[in-house]
């Protein structure tokens, strides 16, 4: 019984003021960096695209950890498993579609 009650009673995870502020500052830095490289044309177009992707993935990770409180803790395991399976489905849909459609437009010479 005791053991049961020590598990987070309302779920959803518990942040602290510090964890929210750390997550917020990291997000601000990553967002400003993304806008900066685009507005100042400081990189080549290909490098800018790659950098935007990397910055976005890092910021998603930061917000999932600091705001959504997903972790590998035992009481959070199913949150993590459902998140990873949804991410897997999204990646298959996205890259699968882009692969098929780029091949289609290449072979039909529509581009």
């Amino acid at each position, binding site marked *: 019984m005791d053991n049961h009650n020590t598990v987070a009673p309302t779920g959803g995870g518990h942040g602290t003021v510090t964890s929210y*502020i750390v997550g917020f500052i990291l997000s601000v830095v990553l967002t400003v960096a993304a806008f900066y490289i685009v507005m100042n044309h400081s990189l080549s177009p290909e490098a800018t695209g790659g950098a935007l992707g990397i910055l976005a993935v890092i910021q998603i990770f930061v917000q999932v950890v600091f705001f959504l409180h997903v972790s590998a803790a035992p009481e959070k395991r199913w949150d993590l498993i459902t998140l990873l399976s949804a991410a897997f489905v999204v990646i298959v849909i996205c890259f699968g579609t882009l692969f098929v459609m780029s091949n289609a437009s290449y072979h039909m010479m529509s581009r």
Partner: protein
Amino acid sequence: MTTQDATMTNDTAHDHGDHGDLSVFGFWVYLMTDCIVFGCLFTSFAVLRHQFAGGPTAQSVFELNGVAIETALLLISSLTYGFAMLQARKKNKGAVMGWLVITALLGAGFLYYEIEEFCHLVSVGAAPNVSAFWSAFFTLVSTHGLHVTLGIIWMIVLMIQMSSKGLTSRMITRLTCLSLFWHFLDVVWICVFSFVYLLSMV
């Protein structure tokens, strides 16, 4: 022994009032399916991102200043909702109300800038029926905007319920579900400003 265990778990669940843990997890599973909805919308946008059909191009009509303001409003509202949840766990009803009002106002500010941007785009000829790019753009971005609208309405409903019923454990479960929803919308917005607005300007 096993039946005893079963009744014990049942009792614990009833102690928590309304299966709060399970409600939050159920809502989380819904959010993951919503994630797949947005994944499909982003994919169709990615496929159609060069199809302007002779209409206005993204580069010629997007204004990044407005997008930066929208991003800031949504990110700050995520932080203020986090503060509301911290106060909710301390059972500090007045402070929860205050942070929720600030969060709802920031969300409304986001919507104001988004609607203003849509009006500007339509006025310069970038309407949803002009080309595949603008159809995909308006479908994706306004789906996110509709989610934000529903989030604000939900927030107002919870504030009304909280003022009459107080911060019960059931209320904290509902606030927790909305917190996941609100933070999730900020995560989706990261992809919107990175892959829709900024990448189109490269």
